[in-house]
């Protein structure tokens, strides 16, 4: 009886082994994307209003698992790119530090994740021209005198916090005599530090700041006049694998058809849809 069972199991294994390769295997045709006919885009899905996770589907969302959906400015941009290129859009939720490695490991075709092109990043990936540009602002407690600040130099001797591994953190030192807080990994955690008086200000791009303040009414945005703000590139670009010029040119061509007004309107719409806004 035992032998019979062993034979049965063996037979199953053998048929299982032979059955697998007989399934139609697509001969790998040269394609500009990782998977033929698909555009796989990586993002964090936790960086509203650029990309966020929600539980209900609607006309704007894309499914990222059997139960989660993602929406946001980046998602809408990805949808337009996929539509124009005639590809099926697939969005992969990845950790921030895993985005560029995933690009280079042929896991995703594009990073559309509110990522700014920097010289360091440009060494590991190629970037399109910006698909969104915004202002760099500060978030402060609304009841703090700093809410009336007009120049970044008003933050001298104050504790300012930026997000780890982002331009948000690098620019903090543009404030003379600033107390540069140890950068933190996640933006919501930073908001908590501000609410709990651990720090006096957070650097943020305007659309992110709008979302944060909408969710936390005790906070306020400080905008700076031209010349007294941060000197920084706040634009965000699409990243493609280094050397994949075919895809880069194709994506660039789509981005070029979307004018500034359309982009701004897309961002306002996304900001209004984000879950933090009730």
């Amino acid at each position, binding site marked *: 009886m035992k032998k019979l069972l062993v034979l049965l199991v063996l037979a199953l294994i053998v048929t299982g082994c032979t059955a697998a390769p007989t399934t139609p295997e697509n001969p790998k045709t040269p394609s500009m994307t990782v998977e033929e006919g698909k555009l796989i885009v990586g993002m964090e899905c936790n960086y509203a209003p650029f990309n966020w996770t929600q539980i209900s589907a609607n006309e704007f969302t894309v499914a990222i698992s059997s139960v989660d959906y993602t929406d946001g400015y980046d998602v809408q941009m990805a949808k337009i790119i996929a539509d124009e290129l005639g590809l099926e859009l697939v969005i992969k939720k990845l950790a921030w530090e895993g985005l560029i490695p995933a690009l280079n490991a042929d896991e995703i075709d594009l990073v559309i994740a509110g990522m700014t092109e920097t010289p360091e990043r440009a060494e590991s990936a190629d970037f399109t021209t910006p698909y969104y540009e915004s202002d760099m602002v500060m978030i402060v407690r609304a009841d703090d005198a700093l809410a009336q600040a007009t120049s970044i130099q008003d933050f001298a001797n104050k504790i300012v916090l930026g997000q780890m591994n982002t331009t948000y953190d690098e620019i903090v030192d543009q404030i003379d005599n600033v107390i540069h807080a140890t950068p933190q990994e996640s933006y*919501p955690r930073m908001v908590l530090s501000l609410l709990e008086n651990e720090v006096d200000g957070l650097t943020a791009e305007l659309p992110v700041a709008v979302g944060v303040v909408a969710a936390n009414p005790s906070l306020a945005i400080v905008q700076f006049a031209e010349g007294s703000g941060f000197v920084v590139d706040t634009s965000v670009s699409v990243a493609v694998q280094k050397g994949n010029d075919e895809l880069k040119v194709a994506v660039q061509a789509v981005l070029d058809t979307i004018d500034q007004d359309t982009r701004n309107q897309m961002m306002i719409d996304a900001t209004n849809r984000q879950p933090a806004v009730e």
Partner: protein
Amino acid sequence: MKYLTITGNQFIDTCLSILITFWPSLLLGVKTVLLVAISGTIIGLVIGLIIGGLRAIKVEKGSILYIIKWVYDVLAKCYVEIFRGTPMMVQAVFIYYWLKPAFGWTPIVAGIFVISINTGAYMAEIIRAGIQSVDVGQTEAARSLGMTSIQTMMNIVLPQAIKNAFPAIGNEFIVNIKDSSVLNVISVTELFFQAKSIAGSLYKYEETFLVTAVVYLVLTIITSSILHIIEKRMNATKTSYPSSSTTSRMVKTQGGGK
């Protein structure tokens, strides 16, 4: 997102709203945690049994087997030291990206692989300790009955060693439920990764992670209760041997009233 008013306390209401709205997302995370923790513990136990079991086998000096055994012991020791001595988070990132070109694996497969070999290192030590806890008289008796050292290990020592080590093995499972959270660095959609998305989408950090902590706690409490029941069953001797020790233990158990 619409926040519900249930208790009137804003903090608690936000927590409940997150739970009510995002439960499918959290449940997906729980399923992944269980998949990774269960398969990681089982595969890790198998690795531990093989490595720990072979380490405990004694070979006579002077034979070629002795040299092979010596090399094996060194390698096994290196494996245990390396995987117990480095953080699983570091192992996850390194192994995932390092072997990605060769295996082309998904984060979940890589996650199970990492947690398995990590658990294997701990299990090897647990099994080794379990084997040492078995009275040497058991081995002597088995050998004097003519069993080979492998037969003795498989039929006599290991079953008792596993029973003795069961609480420690169960503990590894609970540790794995919690430690699977570090796999978020390689984007395994486990509970912590899912919670990070919710917190980032809502800008509600404390509330989301309080809910997450409670979910983890529920998981570990249920698991430890199940393990406790299994442990009790293993210890309740159900043999019909009319030996005095069996009887006395049964009497003791009844007398204890537990």
